């Protein structure tokens, strides 16, 4: 149940992020979610898009330093206290989260959380056993 995430290494100089967005736009690729982690020197842009393989190839061809990473998506209720039980379940199962970011789906009262964990398969099991829905990659790409 892994969702393909695109990671792009970006130097902190103006116009780099715009260049990524412009390239994806020109290929008609839609960004579903994004997050940026940065230091003073560089940043990592993480993207969930509707056509990840195609976006990956396009970025690589344009010379971007890019990689595809498997992440996990989990749906949590979009209300106070929605996220905490999911994280607690993972923590109790001793699963480490490297990073996560979230977005709120348009049509439902749920938020989607994207997680990079060390043992994805076990995390899926833990979350499902705790009563959370783990959407399929197709559901995420087509949101």
């Amino acid at each position, binding site marked *: 149940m892994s969702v393909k995430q695109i990671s792009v*290494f970006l130097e902190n100089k103006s116009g780099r992020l715009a260049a990524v967005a412009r390239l994806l736009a020109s290929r008609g690729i839609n960004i579903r979610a994004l997050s940026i982690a940065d230091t003073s020197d*560089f940043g990592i842009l993480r993207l969930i898009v509707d056509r990840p393989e195609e976006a990956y190839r396009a970025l690589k061809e344009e*010379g971007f330093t890019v*990689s595809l990473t498997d992440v996990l998506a989990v749906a949590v209720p979009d209300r106070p206290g929605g996220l905490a039980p999911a994280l607690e379940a993972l923590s109790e199962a001793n699963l480490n989260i*490297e990073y996560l970011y979230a977005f709120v789906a348009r049509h439902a009262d749920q938020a989607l959380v994207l997680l990079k964990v060390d043992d994805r398969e076990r995390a899926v099991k833990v979350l499902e056993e705790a009563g959370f829905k783990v959407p399929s990659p197709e559901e995420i790409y087509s949101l």
Partner: protein
Amino acid sequence: MRVVSGLRRGETLSREELRELQLVRLKALLVRVYERVPFYRRKMDEAGVKPEDIRSLEDIRHLPFTTKEDLRENYPFGLFAVPLKDVVRIHASSGTTGKPTVVGYTRRDLNLWAELVARIVRMAGVGRGDVAQVCFSYALFTGGFGLHAGLERVGATVVPAAAGNTERHVRLMQDFGTTVLVGTPSYILHIAEVARQMGVDPRRLKVRKALCGAEPWSEGMRAEIERTWGIEAYDNYGLSEIIGPGVAGECLERQGLHINEDHFLVEVIDPNTGEPLPVGEKGELVFTTLTKEALPLIRYRTRDLSRLLPGPCPCGRTTIRMERVMGRTDDMLIIRGVNVFPSQIEEVITSIPGLAPHYQIIVDRKGYLDELEVQVELAQEGFTGSYEDLESLEEAVRHRLQSILSITPKVKLLEYGSLTRSTGKAKRVIDRRRGGEG
């Protein structure tokens, strides 16, 4: 079918025969320059040495050095030993600081030059049947014309593609079935990048060898070129003042570069004191051109640092070998009192997986302290998407540099392709301490 012809007599003399030949040639050279070059007559008179005082090769230490400044002060033709009408070719080295240094060749010099480059080419196992693409500039710089003549001499099919227009290089390689690339190591690596951008896998081309020269490079860089292209890369050495390429080159053993000693007498000196060093010690290379006509030079200080590797070579050549040049005395950075060569930094960068061999060294002064910043590109396949991996890469570079240089540098990772690529000698160092870049 490739035909690589055999060794020349000058490459296989016994050490005694070679020394005899060198002494005869040295004596004749001194007579010639004393008669014909006022600069040398004056210098030798000042030093109180006459040509006939030199009775053994060891006596050479009584002769004065020649420096790049001497060439500049006698710009353009002041050190020529023949009238200009006998000079059939002029080359010059780029004058990044001040006037260029001008060198001249008689017809016999050009013939000798081609012969000596031909030796270097044969040493690397290149010969008739090879299609050799020259990626050096063909201009005042000696690289292009020098390699061209030597390659023709061995019977290779020479493609004078010259530096620049990199996409055309790739197309020519595809269309002509190029088997040998000739250029600076940094440019040869860049051609592979451009090939990939064009959708051409460099490893699938017919290229089998590269003859690299004209800039100091590291073993790590060699490994990178060999891996990227799927070829063998050979080092060769020369400088325009001495003749251009053709002074020394690697044989198939690749354990040092054989110096064409029957035409160039080599010494290694302490760059600070000028005193000759025992064989095997690291110092500045000094050459005396034994047979050149237009521009004979006595004890020319190259500013290149290396050491001699005595002992027989399995290839059968008896000429002494020199270690690859680790850098020039003028490239040496002194950072907080520590001597740093760009090649040391390159060695570290190319030894760490995940980094591309494209880097820049920035030296600056904050207050009273020198600061070293190393900017290096991530390899395209080296990026995993993980923040931790990037941090440990930075830490690995910092740690390795710190352990060899005793300075903790700032390390900055760059996007692949971020630094400008060079078609000739790569510019790696920006020293802001001197005010301005350079």
